[in-house]
């Protein structure tokens, strides 16, 4: 691969950038997914999700970058993002992967994402409900990993992602409404940061 293809520079700014010149694929994709699966697989629930996605052959693609990760219902594909120089799954990568696995599992279970162009309110309501379910699922997996070596990393990442309130509410056995309050405040805070 030439420098031009790797960087999307248009080489020396001397020719127009074409999308195909930008290499979005992550160079350590396999290592990132393997190391994440190694941690997630220590949880019974995590193993279930990994197996389901594997059985149903949901593609997982890791791309370079700092944007959000998640499951694309439109493309029926999981997209994970990680900085181009990251070679081993970080805590936030693992948490996002669990969340994306659960989103894919829900879609496969028949909870289809509505078309946002038809009814934006129904879409928003569905997506926020799914987000909360997936984050709750992340909390369940993290709880199952309490005695694992990565537990502290995962808690730190939940804090960095603004989701420690949801986790605490989950651990305290709070109701779905109370979990939703924590989720909503985390969502508002993340919008504020952007």
């Amino acid at each position, binding site marked *: 691969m030439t420098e031009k293809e790797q*960087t*999307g*520079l*248009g080489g*020396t*700014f001397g020719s*127009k*950038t*074409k*999308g*195909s010149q*930008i290499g*979005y*694929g992550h160079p350590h994709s396999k290592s990132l997914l393997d190391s994440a699966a190694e941690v997630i697989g220590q949880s019974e629930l995590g193993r279930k999700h990994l197996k389901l996605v594997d059985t149903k052959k949901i593609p997982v*693609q890791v*791309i*370079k*970058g*700092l*944007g*959000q*990760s*998640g*499951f*694309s*219902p*439109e*493309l029926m*594909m999981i*997209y994970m*993002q*990680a*900085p*181009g*120089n*990251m070679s*081993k799954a*970080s805590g936030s990568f693992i948490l996002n992967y669990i969340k994306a696995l659960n989103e894919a599992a829900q879609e496969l279970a028949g909870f289809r*994402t509505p078309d*946002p162009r038809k009814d934006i309110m129904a879409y928003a309501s569905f*997506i*926020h409900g799914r*987000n909360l379910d997936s984050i709750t699922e992340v909390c369940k997996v993290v709880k199952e990993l309490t005695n694992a070596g990565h537990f*502290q990393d995962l*808690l*730190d990442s939940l*804090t*960095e992602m*603004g989701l*420690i*309130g949801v*986790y*605490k509410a989950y*651990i305290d056995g709070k109701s779905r409404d109370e979990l939703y309050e924590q989720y909503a405040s985390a969502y508002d*805070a993340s919008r504020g*940061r952007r």
Partner: protein
Amino acid sequence: MNWQRLDRESTLKTIDSVKSASDAGLFSPTTSEVQRARLSFYEGIDLYKLTNFASLPSFTFEYLGDGVFFQYLDGTEMPIYTTNDKGRLTLNDRSVVDYLEFFFSHVIAEEEETCFIHSAHDMPLLDSLDEDSIDAITKNHNAPTVQYDAGFDKFTVDADLYSDGLLIRATIEVTASGRVVVQNRRMIVNALAQSPGSGIMV
């Protein structure tokens, strides 16, 4: 960041320039928008953000570009340095601080996210800390200071950084070509460890 949404024609042109043939769905023109923000330290180079709203969370991709040529910001320093080497970087006592703020928000070094703290209120998750921690951070925070060394044509910036739950004071060297080296770090406040709200994790 002061984002300006591009009109439809410019949006389509930008998407056409940056889209990946193998992941065309990620760059769908019907569900995506492109925004642009000016950067004080570049002449003729802006920050572009492409957002695909087809899913939530929305997929976002950021680029440095002049409207025709784009560098994808992949979380490493390489695309920023490559852009700098095109001769469009103009650093001065003021813009070097903006540059560092931009740099640390787009580069993850050693797999550790680092936030450049311009003002104490910039600190991530400040709202989740208790009053004593917020007070300690505010009291201990110092605004960035800049020194220019004309002999070596480089800037030395003393500034607060937030990394791994720690507020640290760092000396950062920035060359005229925008190369960034953090020379030393001194811990100021272990912010999260002081927060009762984080008792679950410390």
